[in-house]
């Protein structure tokens, strides 16, 4: 399993798309630092960008990576090693490489900017952690889609739709639901709806740390008011973990019954 992980990681870090992805974050981070010397402003701008980009890159990169590696994965499946070990090693190689891109692309410029001497160290770590978490979750969803659908066009279309749903459509649907049900108590519903979207979870966790009520949005405000920041943060982290564990469980179930 370790050798599959090692070579899957090597394959990823030599990919020009990963270079472009890392370069993009480097460029954006340096540009934001040059435009505004204030670390808080830089972190807020970066959080807006990463919350949009990381899920998209994770899901598109993941589906493409699986489809391009499909024949090689089939060759690995003929070796005396379980399907689960092969897929988890392949997936981990992808997820680690994506996280490394974020750490290098955002972490390096901010370190040179002196983020560790500012009062925003914990926010910086939360931003990096959430961007990595979203990469892990969405690349896992990508694997799930690609394993389920053998047709590449179908798989990629579903991946794009899923990203669109979580990044854009979902918030609209939530607002619409809240508007329709405005005469009822909505606290629990609001929190439940937030838990069902990993991008919202990451956004609210960053904003809870920022403590900017104007930017927290309705969900963040409800969470902060009714559960409290510490318990709310814990709930978010647990939910994000579930967003990893549940797709992993589904992937394992699909793998056990799939023909390759």
């Amino acid at each position, binding site marked *: 399993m370790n050798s*599959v992980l090692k070579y899957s990681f*090597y394959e990823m870090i030599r990919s020009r798309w990963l270079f472009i992805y890392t370069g993009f974050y480097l460029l954006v981070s340096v540009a934001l630092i040059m435009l505004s010397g204030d670390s808080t402003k830089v972190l807020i701008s970066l959080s807006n960008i990463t919350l949009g980009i990381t899920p998209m890159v994770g899901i598109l990169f993941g589906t493409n990576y699986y489809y391009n*590696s499909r024949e090689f994965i089939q060759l690995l499946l*003929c070796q*005396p090693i379980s399907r689960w070990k092969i897929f988890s090693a392949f997936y981990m190689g992808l997820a680690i490489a994506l996280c490394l891109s974020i750490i290098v692309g955002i972490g390096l410029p901010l370190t040179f900017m002196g983020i560790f001497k500012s009062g925003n160290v914990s926010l910086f770590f939360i931003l990096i952690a959430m961007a990595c978490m979203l990469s892990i979750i969405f690349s896992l969803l990508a694997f799930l889609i690609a394993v389920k659908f053998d047709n590449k066009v179908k798989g990629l279309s579903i991946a794009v739709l899923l990203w669109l749903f979580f990044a854009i459509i979902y918030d609209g649907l939530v607002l619409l639901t809240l508007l329709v049900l405005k005469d009822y108590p909505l606290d629990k519903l609001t929190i439940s709806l937030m838990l069902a979207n990993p991008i919202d979870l990451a956004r609210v966790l960053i904003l809870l740390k920022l403590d900017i009520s104007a930017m927290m949005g309705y969900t963040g405000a409800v969470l902060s008011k009714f559960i409290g920041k510490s318990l709310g943060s814990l709930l978010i982290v647990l939910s994000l973990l579930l967003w990893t564990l549940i797709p992993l469980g589904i992937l394992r179930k699909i793998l056990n019954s799939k*023909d390759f």
Partner: protein
Amino acid sequence: MIEIKQLQKKYHKLVVLKGIDLDISGRGVIALLGPNGSGKTTLIKCILGMVLPSGGQIFFNGENIKGKNEYRNDIDYLPQIAQFPENLSAIEIIELMKSFKQGETREKALIELFGLERELEKKMMNLSGGNRQKINLVIALMHDSPVIILDEPSTGLDPLSITRLKSFLRNESNRGKLILLTTHIMSLAEGMAEKVIFLLDGRIRFNGMMTELLDMQGGQDLESSIAQLLDNETV
């Protein structure tokens, strides 16, 4: 060595394998033949555990293979289409594939046999189709396992490499190995195999010695014998 009992495979309504009973044992080269869509690759994939049977059982050395991986230690497999990670070098791919099985490997001899010494450090994306297939062969044959399954091994190979491959496989057969070969090139099957399994429409239509098939059909060579067999079945 490989015993198959009432093997069935359905993909939704399409029945690909319709109750295959087969005993593949002993040594030598066995040609698994049949027209496109006859179920050859599905049968091989069932043996390798890549495709899960809808019914029936497969035993390897007396043990049911269902849910098991270890038995694949004793099988070397060459897939028809070899696609490798583009950004890895040939030697990295070989090292990766070496890590799965224990025991001595003989990749150096195979690299020399196929003249790949200069290609090893190149990334897979920079190798020609023929050289990729040669790397595929090195990977498939380097473990010295008792059973070798080859799916269209001559695809993309130059005549010299085909000759070397044939000679290598004959030698392996003489060493007591069991080689299961699928190919559409009848001259390759005729020159290599002592036994023939002929699949048509998910069923075994012939399972016996090559000479027996040639005598039975009265054909001059394997190609005309297979053509006659197909003619008889479709009439």
